[in-house]
């Protein structure tokens, strides 16, 4: 070894440092992951159980946290039908598989991730564009089944292509969207306007 090299600039020192830094950062990440995963498992405080689709979902400003947070209300079964936890999970899961199979993320963002060619779907269930809570379910189904005929492009000329969803498939997608809107996303999207309660 050359004596001119101080210990803090030697190859060996930095090799060890690189290994220790990488190792410890990874350990910290693992610990944080072990803490985070239970907190985002369905049924937790931040990510409600799938049966939340039986409930009324709202998005309200929370003064303490200074952001909007989802508010789970009383009974409001999707398509008027109460589902058990298993049935709800099956329906939401089917809906998510359809969104993956149709590559929705190729145009939309979900929780803000995906493409930017079409609106974010995080709170699509709560969007004021669905007229009112009474008409919402039917409007969503009609739109998903024939997005060209029921185009909602607000003068942009951009349309969703017809992805040939059956009524059952469209219902599953709506179930997935309703469940997703109940996730506590730390206030994303910000300053969101929620759909009218009545028509």
């Amino acid at each position: 070894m050359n004596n001119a090299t101080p210990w803090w600039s030697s190859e060996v020192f930095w090799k060890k440092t690189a290994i220790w830094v990488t190792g410890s950062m990874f350990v910290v990440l693992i610990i944080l992951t072990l803490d985070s995963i239970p907190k985002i498992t369905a049924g937790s405080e931040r990510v409600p159980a799938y049966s939340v689709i039986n409930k009324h979902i709202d998005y309200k400003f929370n003064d303490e946290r200074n952001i909007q947070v989802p508010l789970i209300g009383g009974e409001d079964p999707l398509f008027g039908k109460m589902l058990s936890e298993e049935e709800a999970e099956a329906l939401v899961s089917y809906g998510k598989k359809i969104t993956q199979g149709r590559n929705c993320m190729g145009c939309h963002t979900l929780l803000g991730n995906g493409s930017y060619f079409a609106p974010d779907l995080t709170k699509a269930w709560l969007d004021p564009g669905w007229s009112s809570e009474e008409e919402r379910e039917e409007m969503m189904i009609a739109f998903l089944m024939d997005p060209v005929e029921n185009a909602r492009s607000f003068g942009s000329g951009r349309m969703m292509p017809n992805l040939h969803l059956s009524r059952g498939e469209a219902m599953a997608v709506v179930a997935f969207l309703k469940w997703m809107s109940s996730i506590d996303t730390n206030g994303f999207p910000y300053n969101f306007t929620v759909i009218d309660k009545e028509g």
Partner: protein
Amino acid sequence: MKLDHLNGGQQLAVKYYTVAISLFVAQIIFGLLSGMQYLYPELLFGMLDFNVTRTVHINAMVVWLLYGFIGSVYWLLEEESETEIVGLKLGQLAFWVLTSAVAVVVLVFLLVQSGPGDDFTRWFVNEGREYIEAPRWADIGIVICMLVFFYNVAATFSKGKWSGISGVLTLDLVALAGIYLAGMFYTPNISVDQYWWWWVIHLWVEATWEVLVGCLMAWGLMKVLKVDRKIVTTWLYIEVALMFGSGILGLGHHYFWIGTPEYWLTIGGFFSALEPIPLVAMVVHAVYDAGARHMKGNNNPALAWLIAHAFGNFFGAGVWGFMHTLPQINLYTHGTQWSASHGHLAFFGAYATIVIAMIYIAVPYMRGQKGLGSNLPDGGWKWKWSLGLLNMGVVGMTVALLISGYEQSFIERAVGGSTWYGYFSAQTHPWFIQGMEWRMIFGLITSVGIVLLVWDLLTIGKGRVAQEREQTQAVA
């Protein structure tokens, strides 16, 4: 082209480089289509919708960069290990398997496009998760081919000799392959889905890819500028410490809004602010190196692309990343054209440039020459223009998208409250549309750049071969 004079690893590398450049061309073609669809929504509507063109655009990018990395590693493998590659035949088989798989996946994306919400679709058509849309069978195929690649690298170094660079490289490949597994499962829970999905995307792009590029850069500096190995190795370790030190927990800036607990806001914010530090280190070190040794290269195009890499990485990852990384502002910019702006400059600046530099390092050897100095027969106008046009095109697109994104964070997010109506009022705003028009213009400039790049790679130095041959024939 006759490649018998190259070693086994280098012959493999040429194959990978060829596919890489072809996919780069595909990336740009589909990028142009996607950009056009912003301006003319009826373009190919119902035939090749935006979700298809965009999926091919981003997947072609990921795959061509991976091909470029694999090619670069194979290129340096025998020289670095001082022995012959262990599994040349196996490596060639893996190349053809991987390339056929990529071709099938692209054809299925283009022709089948989508499927019903069942397991068959995810296994054989489209997984529908951004960047890792490739169906499950292809994931498994990719992992197997990566294992063959890993075997070739690790076994060749074991048979020959290890060095600091090869050690870092091999460990990094383990991490790179291992992290990919985090994206290979299904869950109905979108929060858990995106939690692991970011492990693949972030820990590839902002950690393991960075270190892989650090290894290539270290080798490139030794090769092009003849920098001393001991120094290069020490600095590779320093960079690994800085990059993994800030980059691994920098993952936190993707965990702001996906349902994960609030402490990620702080972790993500802090480590994102640290992520530019390796870049500052590079600035100081580059100045020191420039003064400490004569900047005498034997490969001007490669050197120019390495410099483009340094600048691109600094602006794309550093400046463009930091501008919208703090959660206080990211709340408005997340999922807008901001991300697209940052993505274009960062991917190009940090990765495309270095792969192109590595290919330029290989080109003279492929043609049996000593280097690509300044005495090219045509003055090297093709590589100079392709360098200029590609960089100008990408920077132009980045600025155009930035303007659109700025407008979008205003109109859609802050004023419009992120509703569908807010989204479309932002998309129809003149600033947004003009941003998209300028993006298209610079996209076309980028395409002229790629045409010149391909032309140059196919022809550079050829005139000189002819001259040298004529001279030898005259002597004979």
